């Protein structure tokens, strides 16, 4: 009897396990806006995955890992999309994906959380904090947030493109992830 009791004690002492969620691809989006010659251009990455564990009751146990396919970029202009995947920009041939791995969720009141994590684009990894709103309604969750990035942090836009003259440095990411509970 001793061993099972000990196991039970051990299990209950662990932090509450977060729920696992499956992203609904058709309802989720990853959009970005940047300035081209001073005018805003919006695009999106059509293909990305997110492995999500989250329970509002236990944000400490939450985690997310998102993988974005660079080649799925769509800015409404095929020539520009090819350029974005090219060596001066994301270099999709060498770095086919970008990745976000959370390092910690912090509840900031209501449905708001600061999601800290490491964002890897090309061969650069940078610590970022995503301010997210995560609304759970039964088996459905909607997470939205925006993040301003400087593309030069990640070496996106090499050579002549490093200047902000033609393409601005600031990029606004707009994240919307809709997911259903796995259990």
């Amino acid at each position: 009897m001793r061993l099972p009791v000990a196991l039970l004690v051990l299990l209950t002492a662990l932090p509450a396990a977060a729920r696992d969620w499956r992203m609904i691809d058709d309802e989720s989006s990853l959009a970005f806006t940047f300035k081209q010659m001073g005018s805003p251009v919006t695009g999106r990455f059509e293909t990305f995955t997110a492995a999500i564990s989250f329970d509002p009751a236990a944000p400490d146990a939450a985690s997310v890992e998102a993988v974005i396919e660079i080649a799925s970029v769509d800015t409404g202009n095929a020539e520009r999309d090819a350029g974005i995947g090219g060596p001066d920009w994301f270099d999709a041939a060498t770095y086919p994906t970008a990745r976000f791995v959370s390092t910690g969720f912090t509840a900031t009141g209501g449905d708001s959380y600061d999601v800290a994590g490491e964002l890897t684009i090309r061969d650069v990894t940078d610590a970022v904090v995503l301010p997210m709103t995560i609304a759970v309604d039964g088996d459905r969750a909607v997470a939205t947030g925006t993040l301003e990035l400087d593309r030069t942090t990640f070496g996106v836009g090499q050579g002549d493109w490093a200047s902000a003259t033609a393409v601005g440095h600031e990029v606004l990411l707009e994240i919307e992830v809709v997911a259903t509970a796995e259990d």
Partner: protein
Amino acid sequence: MRLTNSPDGYGFVHWALHWITAALIFWLFWLGLTMVELPISPQMFQDYALHKSLGLTVLVLVLARLAWRRLTGVPALPDGMGRLESLVATAVHHGIYVLLLVIPLSGWLYSGATASPANWFGFFTVPDLIGANEAVAKVLRAVHDIAGKLLMLCLALHVLGALKHHFISRDAVLKRMLLPRRS
């Protein structure tokens, strides 16, 4: 110096609109023909942006000139022109005005169709008239190119006509556009 047109000459406003537009058209032709040969580069982006800014300027100047014509009229064709000659002169004038509307408008639409919004010298972004659409972009590009070539043809006829009036008919048609009326 008179501002308004009269039956025997052009006022300062029409004269200035005519010559500023003429200078911009030359600049636009030169930019348009050279920028399409450039590789995708910041220089290409800058040339396209300048071409769009100048083209929007021409659109406004042409609309202003059409309004000014309505308000103050235009000098009559000189006496002694044959029916066919008058017909050709009128057709070329009307053709130039139509092309000077079709060309910037197709360019503006093309900016929307290629999801590369136009702005005016970086001061403000003009709204896209249509959404991104590659098939429509192809048609608009063809319209823009063909209308541009037709404009070159019309302008050649326009200049030849002016020279014919001056050197062969020896009337005041060229002189009245070289110098605005003084009284």
